[in-house]
């Protein structure tokens, strides 16, 4: 019996449910089996075993949902997500707390759901699950900073989710269709739906000024969780940008600015993972720039989209490797600041060299995978004759190599005569994961055809043309020279950088202050005055009324009746609290209303 199709994301999501049930070695084997099964599923899909068209279409509340939109673009992203998830799970294998694994698997599964979503409802559904499951990878670190950073993370992502919801609903109103294809773009208020969806996508892609959540939250996540975080949120945002907004010109500028922005802020960083987080922003800038240049039907446009997809593929691998390396340092030494590290090379040489493979990849050294992908985007910008963009992208490479490839490893492993603390190599599973990822980086660098074959458009780009190689080597060599000469000045400083999150952190404090002071004063003011209105109902003829009306009523109401219903005790308490005045006036009010009612009825009947 041939099943119609199996969603790779479902393997992760349903598989996550079984994780708490298994224990010990069985759980570890199971954890590695799931991504392997998903990988086999992907290979079967790409071989066409299940057929080609959209799979798992469902009609829900009058909409046509498509859970399985399979084409070259979604397959390339799905491949890298699954392959990377295998390495990341191997890296996290030693974690005993099962709910961290559940969160990670839900995160991977929902990202695959986003990648294969054919319509906007399914996209939104998995988008939200991605945000909430990744939140727990941050919160599980259980430090005060992690709780705060996670809260800000989910607030920003929830805001993005709301923008997406608003945009999707508006889009539905405007076009009547919920299919996920490229959105119309232009200037004017009728494009509000597109603007809102665009805003949501660029929040997830961490485009400045909305990028602060990334540098805030990723360094506070758990050692193994941060590795997961680097890949999925930002790259699935690139995927949906390619789907929804290819060729939108503003993305070119946003991407170039991002590339330079990330590098500049990385200069100021002391925390090792925050420095790498800013480099994520920088590298994603290349991808965003590529999407912006991706006008359909032109050779340069296809090169740009290929470049964006290829760079996403390679970036996931080498960024995971870099975070694995830095995570290993934190795991082993417990320190995460450059000012507190140094001189530990002799304890962890293997980690160092595996990290350096990742560093060479991100810098774009020939023979490593960054070279074959980053240069595609840069070449596309040259083909479009965007000279300033080209210059910014090339310049960002300098900064990338300088920080990730030189300053960071120098500061962490060298830079001091005596080691700053005891260290050792990280656990074997972490080293194995780093090794596999490093191997993949090198493999793709040496044999790029594997990657080029699965890119969405046919590739006629030759990365190892002599011109490219020479240009890159030139750049890198002089960067190294500059570093060596200036290395004394390039150490970490114990500072905190202010980024755009300052705005909403201060705004958040102001909102809370507003709620607690002015708003509460207003609410109490309304409360007091409403209570004061009750004074209006106090009776001025009270003494006389007491004698002739209220005492007999009192006896009947408060003595005889409670005797019947056995409420003597409460009666005493009520007398003590002097509710009597108000409760008698209640009778008057009710009498008045009854009279009014009778009057109206009388009038009606007489009609």
């Amino acid at each position: 019996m041939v099943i119609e199709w199996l969603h790779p994301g479902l393997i992760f999501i349903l598989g996550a449910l079984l994780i708490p049930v298994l224990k010990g070695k069985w759980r570890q084997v199971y954890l590695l089996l799931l991504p392997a099964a998903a990988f086999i599923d992907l290979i079967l899909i790409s071989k066409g075993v299940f057929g080609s068209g959209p799979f798992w279409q469902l009609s829900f509340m009058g909409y046509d949902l498509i859970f399985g939109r399979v084409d070259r673009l979604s397959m390339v992203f799905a491949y890298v997500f699954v392959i990377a998830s295998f390495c990341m799970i191997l890296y996290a294998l030693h974690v005993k707390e099962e709910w961290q694994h559940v969160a990670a698997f839900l995160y991977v599964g929902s990202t695959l759901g986003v990648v294969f979503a054919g319509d906007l409802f399914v996209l939104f559904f998995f988008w939200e699950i991605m945000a909430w499951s990744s939140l727990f990878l941050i919160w599980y670190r259980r430090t005060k900073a992690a709780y705060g950073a996670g809260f800000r993370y989910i607030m920003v992502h929830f805001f993005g989710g709301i923008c997406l919801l608003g945009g999707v609903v508006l889009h539905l109103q405007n076009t009547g269709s919920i299919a996920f294809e490229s959105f119309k773009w232009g200037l004017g208020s009728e494009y509000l739906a597109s603007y809102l969806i665009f805003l949501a996508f660029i929040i997830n892609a961490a485009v400045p000024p909305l990028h602060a959540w990334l540098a805030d939250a990723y360094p506070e996540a758990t050692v193994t969780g941060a590795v997961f975080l680097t890949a999925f949120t930002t790259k699935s945002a690139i995927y949906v940008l390619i789907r929804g907004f290819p060729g939108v010109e503003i993305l070119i500028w946003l991407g170039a600015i991002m590339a330079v922005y990330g590098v500049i802020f990385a200069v100021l960083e002391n925390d090792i993972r925050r420095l790498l987080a800013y480099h994520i922003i920088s590298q994603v800038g290349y991808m965003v720039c590529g999407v912006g240049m991706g006008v359909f039907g032109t050779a340069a446009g296809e090169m740009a989209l290929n470049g964006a997809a290829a760079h996403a593929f390679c970036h996931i691998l080498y960024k995971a490797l870099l975070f694995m390396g830095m995570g290993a340092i934190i795991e082993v030494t417990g320190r995460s600041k450059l000012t507190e590290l140094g001189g530990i090379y002799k304890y962890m040489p293997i980690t160092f060299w595996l990290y350096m493979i990742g560093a060479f990849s991100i810098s774009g050294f020939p023979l490593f995978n960054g070279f074959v992908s980053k240069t595609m985007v840069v070449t596309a910008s040259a083909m479009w004759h965007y000279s300033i963009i080209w210059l910014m992208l090339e310049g960002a490479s300098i900064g990338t190599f300088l920080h990730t490839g030189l300053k960071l490893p120098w500061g962490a492993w060298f830079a001091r005569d005596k080691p700053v603390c005891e260290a050792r190599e990280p656990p074997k599973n972490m080293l194995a994961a780093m090794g596999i990822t490093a191997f993949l980086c090198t493999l793709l660098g040496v044999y790029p055809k594997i990657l080029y074959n699965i890119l969405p458009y046919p590739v006629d780009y030759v990365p190892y043309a002599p011109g490219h190689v020479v240009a890159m080597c030139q750049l890198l060599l002089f960067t190294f020279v500059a570093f060596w000469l200036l290395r004394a000045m390039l150490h970490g400083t114990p500072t905190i950088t202010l980024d755009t999150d300052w705005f909403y952190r201060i705004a958040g404090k102001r909102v809370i202050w507003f709620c607690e002071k002015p708003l509460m004063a207003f609410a109490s003011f309304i409360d007091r005055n409403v209570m004061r209105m009750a004074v209006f109902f106090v009776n001025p003829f009270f003494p006389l009324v007491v004698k002739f009306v209220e005492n007999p009523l009192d006896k009947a109401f408060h003595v005889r009746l409670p005797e019947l219903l056995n409420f003597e005790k409460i009666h005493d308490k009520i007398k003590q609290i002097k509710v009597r005045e108000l409760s008698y006036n209640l009778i008057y009010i009710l009498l008045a209303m009854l009279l009014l009612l009778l009057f109206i009825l009388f009038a009606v009947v007489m009609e």
Partner: protein
Amino acid sequence: MMMPYILLQTIVVPVIASLFILLTKRKIGKRAGWIPGITLLYTTALICIAGISVYQGTIISEEYVWGPYVTFGLLADGLSIPVALIINIICAALAFYSIHYVEHRIAVIYGEEDERTKLSYYNTFFWLYLLFPAAFIGICFATNLIVIYLFMELMVIPLYFIMSFFGYVERFRVAVMCFLWGIVGGTFVLFGAVLVYSQIGTFAISELHTLAGNPMTFWIALLILLGVSTKLAIFPLHVWMPWVHAEHPTCIAGLLAVYANIGAYVIVRVLILPLYNDLKVFSIPIMIMALITIVYGALLTLAQTDVKRLCACSTIGQISYSVLGLGALTIWSIEGGMFYFLSHILGKAILFSTAGIVVYVTGIRDMREMGGLIHKMPIAATLWIIAAIILTGVPISSGFTGKWILFTGVFGAYPGSAGLAIASLGIFSTILTAAYTFWAAYRIFFKGPLKPELANNNKIKDPPLTMSIPLLILAVISFIMAVYPKPFMDLFHSVIGLL
């Protein structure tokens, strides 16, 4: 297999059970606590049977003639059955939840009394409790304006007594405040009903559509809306809610959320369905007032430090989401408003009841003195987070489905920029809900290690099963509504889709 008098049973059986408890107070003793729960399970089963028959297309209608001018009619159609079902399930769950809670409350308030008095109060609670579901279901199934008025006022009476016997701080004054506000709200509805009679000579809801185009319809609608707004705690008239909702015994918290929110059902049944075109003039004002209430309620909630007041102020904002949907007057938005009403009462019942568990177990109401409670009360923390998920509208909760439907309708109502602005502001306020529920969860359960007084108190542990299982069942129902909204939407659509 159609039971006879099925709708009448759902109203009368709780009343009979209530009388039974009242009359046999001394004999039954503590077992009286189980009677409301079992009775309500029975009426829930009845409503399910009725619901299945309505879903298959036959509307159930019963008529009981009381006199020459008064006919007591009950109608179960696509609009009233889902509402009645969810309300009854919540009442049943909270009846089981109350069994333990009321004992604790009596021990705190009447601790020095003798056992007979304490038993008497215990049973008093339960016979008063059963009047609530009777009143709610009566409102849901009523076909006559006077009957709706009758049950709306009937709701206030057990509330007054339960508040004054079992409430918290200043319970007598707050009980009187609650009674006054409730009665005044009902009286405006009565005025509207009498005006209706003066125009068309009947109180029957099925005849209301003949009022369309009548110049008095504006005043009728205004009076009824004013009356119901008092119950719904729309902005200027919301003052009673933080007091009443915070100082009442938490076991009926979920019922108070229903008490307030059932005004939405009344608006749909009495105003929107028969008098749709005449209501269009009220549409933008209702939406604007709802929006103000949402934002004001959410900001007020952010400022609270008392956990019960936090839930109380949160109710103000959440009710207005339904009102926003009703105000937009499109089919999707009305159905979304009703769906969100059901989701809100489920989530609020869980949230408030969990807050009650925390207050009951620790004796503290101020969130600044709590923290790190997850180490001792993991189930309570899970329930709070589930309720936060339902109220915020994270996918896989009924809040998400409700918000989706609601905002699809609200965005489509007024395509101009004013309409877009209102809809966008409404949708952005959902972030405030996320902020206050999760921040409260952090302050109560996750912040730092346990304070020393809490850590040494070994009475702090997870609630007993009769308190947590009903809430878990409510959470499961919310989950089912989220992934399988089709029955509810079909039922709503069979009535609202006729607009």
